[in-house]
């Protein structure tokens, strides 16, 4: 399945893009996606523990099972205000 991944804040600099598409086997989790993304964008590895992950507009944990059509967003801790 194909999963669209969006990057926000300085994750755009770390990856050099705002968006990418990753092909994963069915029933993969966000943890599986993260492994693949770190292979593609090694600079994300240092941010692993603080990376926030959303599917659509809701936060999800690394155990979340991805489904075809999911839009994943990765970003650093938020800083509004």
């Amino acid at each position, binding site marked *: 399945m194909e999963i669209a991944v969006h990057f926000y804040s300085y994750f755009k600099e770390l990856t050099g893009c705002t968006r990418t598409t990753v092909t994963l086997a069915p029933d993969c989790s966000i943890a599986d996606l993260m492994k693949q993304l770190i292979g593609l964008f090694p600079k994300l590895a240092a941010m692993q523990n603080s990376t926030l992950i959303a599917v659509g507009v809701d936060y999800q944990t690394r155990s979340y099972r991805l489904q075809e059509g999911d839009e994943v967003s990765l*970003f650093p801790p938020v800083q*509004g*205000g």
Partner: protein
Amino acid sequence: MKRQLTIAAEPIDEAGLLSKRKVSENMGAAVYFLGVVRGQEDNKTIRAIEYESFHQMAEHQFNLLFDQLEKRWPIESVRLVHRIGRVLVNEPSLWVEVVAPHRGEAFAACQWLIDEMKRVVPIWKRPVP
């Protein structure tokens, strides 16, 4: 609970917001907070802060916070404006108002909302030297 949320690049119109305040007869407190860009960030002088948001998710997360706010306190209304894009030093980036029956719950709700916003709403800032 009435709610009004604005996430936009336009300067925050404090006078306009205050002129539209509505407080019903049973309400005894209107608390508002103005967040202003400081001239220093991490001990460095800056000219501005550039705010970026994941707009659709930010709106959704704010509304989830408003849902919780409504369950925790007897709030009549909440209005929140967050500016995005470049905000110069001394200019406001955040305006929050809570109207409630008593000051205790109005202060508590306003403080809680801002604290939670800084934890979950996807808005980021980048200092501009």
